[in-house]
């Protein structure tokens, strides 16, 4: 399904429910702090219809996406709805209006209940999170918007559930962009939610489209296309469906990145076989040249504060990861192990770089951005490529051929223990999906 998701998002209104145990409640810091730990059993009940949702569509959309996202998070295991005892339509949804025993008896540690009201084009959703063990309400949120906003409401609620249990906001109310052949045999640019829903096609030309990049905002996407026969960068405005071609007087633009605030572009420009990085205004106007010489300098990637730039260069004789300060000064080499290290991505706190390295096949590694020992996070498969960090810093999205064809996968990462656990492929399509990138939260 290809859907529009941009214009309606502004209409999504979210209110924290007042009263005991609101969203400001102290998070319970549990032992489920990362990959390798046990996932907490949670029940997500169907929502009660308070009027207008006679087909159960709104309830179904919200609950389906919430279960999907909590499952994908790696922090929860969803208790099968088949085992739920309570009928939501014949019970209350707030504290004191239902029996915790119906949920503790199926071994739920946590419970989400709620109610929906549909009136014309308006959908109201009230969602509540409970700690079954302590028989208390943790927080509640009331959303209102159109029917097409319901899935996004669920993603936002999933992020709040993760915050309530782990102390850190989840990453699902955001956007990913990627390259896919799902429209035929040509590589085109698509946007989606990080759970694989809400697919939106950006390009439709029978050539080659590559390297989608966001600023923190998902309102624009920068990508490379051969649609005129030559490679060029395009800055696509999602809501307006217009775009700007980014040219360079120095040669062919073959790649680029948007600064976190969206005001700047770093472009990789090839001329005479040499590829160097240039800092540009968002309009494409040149500010200054960042690298010089006859080497390859590609894969620019900003740190979240916009102060540092990681990139790949073969100036040493083999492709390696470098970091430079955009305030000036020389580039510093970060990787020394391996002879083919490319495609860096900064962790949101700026302390780590994820990248891909040739080691048999290609695998995902992390390394301290200040330099140090790399840690290999993927082991299997011929090719694991193009890692990109989630806005909350707990996940990497990357592409892998481990399932036969190239698909996008989500991996849970703990930088403290330097471990990673691949959770799942994001989509079940037969197409090849690659080059994922991840925006910041949509609500910010």
């Amino acid at each position, binding site marked *: 399904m290809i859907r529009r998701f941009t214009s309606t998002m502004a209409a999504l209104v979210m209110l924290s429910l007042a009263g005991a145990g609101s969203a400001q409640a102290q998070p319970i810091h549990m032992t489920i702090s990362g990959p390798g730990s046990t996932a907490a059993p949670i029940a997500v009940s169907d929502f009660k219809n308070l009027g207008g949702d006679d087909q159960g569509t709104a309830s179904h959309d919200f609950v389906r996406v919430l279960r999907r996202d909590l499952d994908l998070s790696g922090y929860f295991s969803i208790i099968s709805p088949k085992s739920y005892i309570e009928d939501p339509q014949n019970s209350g949804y707030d504290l004191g209006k239902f029996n915790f025993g119906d949920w503790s008896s199926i071994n739920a540690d946590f419970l989400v209940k709620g109610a929906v009201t549909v009136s014309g084009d308006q959908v109201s959703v009230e969602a509540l999170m409970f700690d079954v063990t302590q028989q208390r309400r943790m927080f509640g949120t009331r959303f209102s918007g159109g029917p097409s906003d319901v899935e996004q409401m669920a993603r936002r609620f999933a992020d709040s559930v993760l915050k309530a249990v782990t102390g850190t906001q989840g990453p699902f109310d955001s956007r990913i962009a990627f390259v896919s052949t799902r429209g035929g045999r040509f590589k085109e640019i698509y946007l989606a939610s990080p759970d694989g829903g809400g697919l939106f096609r950006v390009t*439709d*030309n029978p*050539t080659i489209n590559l390297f989608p990049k966001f600023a923190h905002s998902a309102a624009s996407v920068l990508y490379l296309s*051969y649609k005129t026969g030559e*490679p060029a960068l395009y800055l696509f405005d999602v809501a307006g469906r217009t775009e700007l071609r980014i040219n360079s007087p120095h040669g062919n633009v073959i790649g680029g990145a948007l600064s976190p605030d969206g005001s700047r572009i770093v472009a990789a420009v090839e001329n005479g*076989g040499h590829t160097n990085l240039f800092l540009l205004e968002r309009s494409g106007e040149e500010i200054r040249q960042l690298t010089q010489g006859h080497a390859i300098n590609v894969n620019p990637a900003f740190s979240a504060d916009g102060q540092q730039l990681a990139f790949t260069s073969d100036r040493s004789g083999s492709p390696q990861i470098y970091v430079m300060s955009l305030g000036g000064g020389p580039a510093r080499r970060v990787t020394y192990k391996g002879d083919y290290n490319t495609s860096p991505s900064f962790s949101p706190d700026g302390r780590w770089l994820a990248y891909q390295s040739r080691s048999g096949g290609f695998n995902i590694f992390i390394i301290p951005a200040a330099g140090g020992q790399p840690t290999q996070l993927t082991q299997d498969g011929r090719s694991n490529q*193009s890692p990109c960090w989630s806005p909350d810093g707990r996940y990497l999205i990357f592409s892998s051929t481990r399932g036969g064809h190239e698909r996008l996968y989500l991996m849970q990462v703990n930088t403290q223990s330097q471990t990673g656990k691949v959770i799942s492929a994001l989509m079940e399509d037969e197409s090849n999906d690659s080059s994922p990138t991840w925006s910041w939260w949509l609500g910010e």
Partner: protein
Amino acid sequence: MTVLPRGRGGSVNSGGRRAGRFAAMVVAAMMIAMVAGCSSKQNGAGAGAGGPGGPGGIGENGLGPNGSSSLNRFQKGMLDANGQGPLSDIHFDYNDYSVRAQDGEVLKSNADWMSKNSATRVQIEGHCDDRGSEEYNIALGAKRAQAAKDYLETLGITADRMSTISYGKELPVCNEDTDECWAQNRRDHFVVQQ
């Protein structure tokens, strides 16, 4: 969707058989262009859902500007190792862009043809195998194309008759994960532009 014709495998641009093969490919191109015409209409119907409608771009028939470029042949579903035209491909070692000794003769032959056909211009395409970063491979393909251009200049072809483009690893002529395939894909392809 248009089905890619299978690669005919085997020799790369071995000269003598080319004329007959070229005639066969023209017929095939016409047939496939008709099929592609149908499928591009379907693409067009989907454009309203999210097409960029941006400036410039591909013409109505969905084909790029350079008649026999690898991108154009890929669009027609005709990209295979046999290539097209009077000039022969050269090949490269993994993650390398230096012209191999055995390819000096190929470039000499290409230079001879260009000297005899002095009104032509040639676009040199750099290509890579399917392994590694897409963006790094575009830069590497650019180095491969430039290496052939520099070599042809030493053989007396003036720079203003040559242009370069890199397609990185995006347009393989062979689609299997084997050493033989990868070796075929690491190539410079030479497209004559009248």
